[in-house]
């Protein structure tokens, strides 16, 4: 079974729930409807033998609706194929947890919650994992400044603002020459 056949099988079984598919450099991505996400994931594990959840991550498309996007990386040990599954989430929506399918998703989803503020329905223990309980921000959101924001929890931890000297300096992607691509100060 190749990844292309896997994508075909998902399309055939879930029909309209598959919003788009994409192949880039041999990597296959399937965009699915959030409502059917959990069913697709279960089917991938049980029928398509994707027994390893490699990673769970998320994207912030600030200014678009829906704002967030979940990304799941799957791998099957028996057939050696990779598959990426994506689903868009708006700010007020929760994502069904997949920690009941792959226990490893537990901490991955806690990290997504900690950094992006996306909540997971049915998660057994949805607490922050990197920052401390009570930290008021979600630092990987696009509207959170790179230098951080001040916060203070007496006896637990505090944060401050890092000096950036006018930065952050970001490479301007897509420029014609190196002058146009040169890193420049960027503010959201």
């Amino acid at each position: 079974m190749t990844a292309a056949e896997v994508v075909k099988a998902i399309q055939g079984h879930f029909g309209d729930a598959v919003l788009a598919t994409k192949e880039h450099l041999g990597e296959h991505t399937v965009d699915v409807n959030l409502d059917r996400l959990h069913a697709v994931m279960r089917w991938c594990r049980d029928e398509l033998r994707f027994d390893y959840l490699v990673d769970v991550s998320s994207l912030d498309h600030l200014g678009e609706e829906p704002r967030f996007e979940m990304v799941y990386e799957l791998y099957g040990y028996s057939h050696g194929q990779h598959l990426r599954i994506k689903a868009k989430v708006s700010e007020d929506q929760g994502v069904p947890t997949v920690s009941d399918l792959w226990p490893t998703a537990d901490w991955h989803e806690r990290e997504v919650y900690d950094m992006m503020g996306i909540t997971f329905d049915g998660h057994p223990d949805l607490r922050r994992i990197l920052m401390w309980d009570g930290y008021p921000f979600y630092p990987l959101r696009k509207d959170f400044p790179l230098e951080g924001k001040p916060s203070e929890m007496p006896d637990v931890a505090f944060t401050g603002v890092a000096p950036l000297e006018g930065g952050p300096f970001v490479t301007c992607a897509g420029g014609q020459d190196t002058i146009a691509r040169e890193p420049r100060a960027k503010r959201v």
Partner: protein
Amino acid sequence: MTALEPIQRTDAAYDSKIEGNVFFTRLDAAINWMRKNSLWPMPMGLACCAIELMATGASRFDISRFGAEVMRFSPRQADVMIVSGTVTYKMALAVKRIWDQMPEPKWCIAMGACASSGGMYRSYAVLQGIDRLIPVDVYISGCPPRPEALLEGLMRLQRKIDKEHSLIEQKKELLEELA
């Protein structure tokens, strides 16, 4: 506090022909000589710099040549805290607490760019230099500094200790408490 007169640089006077087993020295010089040659480090290894700290402690670079090989994992037995690595905000108050548990006299070496200034981590998660929380005596540049640099920092600290008044400057907190 009024300005202290500078420590006199003569450490000891000794002439075996005249004095036999008698030394003449100044109390400050004797105490400082003992302190600086037996610095027990508190290895505050927090990131990659700690690997170089370990190398410094191992046989090739051999920190015991300078009397600082007794790494103590209990702050109550340590003299010098070597902050080697990235101090995240989550760790910052723990470092401070360990520093507060160290008895005087105590010194601090900020080893590497991260401990000195946050290094390459201009970010929401990293304290921008351990000197924002505790007083630092020696900063060592580098990412990571080589073991030789740490030894150089240690020797500079020894020179600094040599010039301090052993009671008034090195037992400041105790004197403040008594006052």
